């Protein structure tokens, strides 16, 4: 699925960075990312859109399982309610966490979780080194991105067709920037991509991210 992110992507990126800090409170029970395992609570990859109480192999309270059976599917909105005071939203949930009182903390942690909600190609980005906020906050020039992107579409088709190479259109900018920097700093190992990313400045990567995010 492709995320519909309504706020400007740089604001989203800042939110994600804050959300990662807030998530420390959740970490003793929930893992997230490519290597996430079941702990006291279920892993939270792909949480938004998941029917409550259905992560295979995880332990749930009867209350949470019934909520799922009764039609509770996690959305940004109901996660916000749940996280405000979990036991008010799902009485008798086994989650002992008392809740996040500040709405901006809830928004940040939801934004962070959303970055683990993307499809397989993008999810891999979660192993990539974090990008500093200044780089993530750059506003890309879409027109310059279209020009630079003409080099990308020699291989990656602009209509999103995936024939032997991943589609790169419609990605959230933050994910695109993170992946490109992972190639630029040689954390990711495809030499063609290392060479392309290595020839691009931070501004140019931002321009590409802005352009490809705009391509439907």
């Amino acid at each position, binding site marked *: 699925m492709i995320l519909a992110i309504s706020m400007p992507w740089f604001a989203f990126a800042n939110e994600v960075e804050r959300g990662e800090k807030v998530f420390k409170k959740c970490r003793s029970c929930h893992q997230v990312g490519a290597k996430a395992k079941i702990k006291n609570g279920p892993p939270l990859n792909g949480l938004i859109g998941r029917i409550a109480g259905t992560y295979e192999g995880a332990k749930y309270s009867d209350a949470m399982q019934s909520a799922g059976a009764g039609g509770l599917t996690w959305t940004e909105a109901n996660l916000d309610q749940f996280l405000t005071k979990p036991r008010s939203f799902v009485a008798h949930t086994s989650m002992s966490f008392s809740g996040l009182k500040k709405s901006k903390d809830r928004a940040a942690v939801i934004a962070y979780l959303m970055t683990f909600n993307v499809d397989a190609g993008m999810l891999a980005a979660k192993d990539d080194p974090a990008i500093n906020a200044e780089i993530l906050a*750059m*506003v890309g020039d879409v*027109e*310059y991105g279209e*020009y*630079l992107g*003409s*080099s990308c*579409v*020699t*291989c*990656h*088709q*602009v*209509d999103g*067709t995936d*024939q*032997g*190479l991943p589609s790169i259109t419609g990605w959230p900018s933050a994910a695109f920037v993170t992946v490109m920097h992972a190639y630029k700093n040689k954390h990711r190992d*495809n*030499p*063609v991509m*290392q*060479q*392309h990313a*290595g*020839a691009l*400045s*931070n*501004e*140019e990567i931002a321009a590409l991210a802005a352009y490809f995010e705009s391509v439907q």
Partner: protein
Amino acid sequence: MKLNRRLFIGSSVVAAASLSAPMVLGATGKPRVVIIGGGAGGATAARYIAKGSKGAIDVTLIEPTRTYYTCFFSNLYIGGFRDFNSIGHTYGKLAAEYGINVVHDWAVGVDRDAKSVTLAGGGKLAYDRLIISPGIDFKEGAVEGWDLSSQNKMPHAYKAGSQTQLLKAQVDAMPAGGTFAMVAPPNPFRCPPGPYERVSMVAHQLKANNPTAKILIVDPKPKFSKQGLFEEGWNNHYAGMIERVGPDFGGDMVSVNPDEMTVTIDGEVNKVDVCNVIPAMKAGKIADIAGVTNDKGWAPVNAVDMSSKMDANIHVLGDASQQGDMPKSGFSANSQAKVCANAVRGALTGSKVFPAKFANTCWSLINEDDGIKVGASYEATAEKIKKIDGFVSKTGENAETRKETFEESVGWYNGISTDMFG
């Protein structure tokens, strides 16, 4: 946002372009771009100028063939990995979806003063900017004993199409234990790994159908592209089948006799069954006719916009150009076409001109799922297109990496053909 030096230069180019861009108007009221050659350079330039200008520029593409067979991946057809039709492309979408005037004819004259191109069919096309992307022609007399009249007996198969089909048919019909010879070209030439990928593909066919056959490469060059990788692959897959005679042993002193089917190396006569002669190359003839080539037979260009050093209203793309560090490849031509299209649009309509950036990757196939690659990124300097950084596959890579590399090349083929033909 912080401005770095590169962006700053980019912005100044934009400013300069918008100040100095006169609207050039033709009879139709629109500026006219004529493009000679519908390959990786010309078709890409046509599509990007038409697409970017949204009808504000009148684009004409002159290409003699109705169906264009790509040189890239034509070796894979020889090796039995591709069907012939899969490397053929038509121009219908460029006409129907991009409004490009596609003219199937030969350009035979360029009048630089009148700014017009003459066609073999007698027509004449006026231009404000002319883009010449004709690929290569062969130097006459480059291989003693060989000329175009002998290309059926000894095919070059270095312009894809009927020649490729002919060479494959000859390889497939070789007598048991026969000899396939290749006369390899001197530098510079189209597709540096091409002859060696071809040898790999021929070896693959012969190993399956004619395992006692031999391959003889006669090469005037002391070394060649991805040599270590090819030689490793030949040892792994085709041990004992391939012999290469370099200049140390007379590889640069070769003549052929197409009637006798012999190849003479430094006086020693070899009887062969198939002979693939790839002569020395020069820019396609029309570049010469237009007067934009130098004494080496190539068309020198300015890196920033691929404009000819002889005429500011003419741009030369791809194999025909002498641009600096990029290899002559379809990927390079496609990359250069985008820089050129951006500059031409800027000059004719005042659209933004961004800094020139180039890239190239050449994939080659050695055996089934054994793909290798070499690539680099480039920038424009005052003197030439200059290499920034590059990479090449390593010897001893595991099978999984090689398979991924091959799959990547298939993705690229699909991508670039869509990028050229829509």
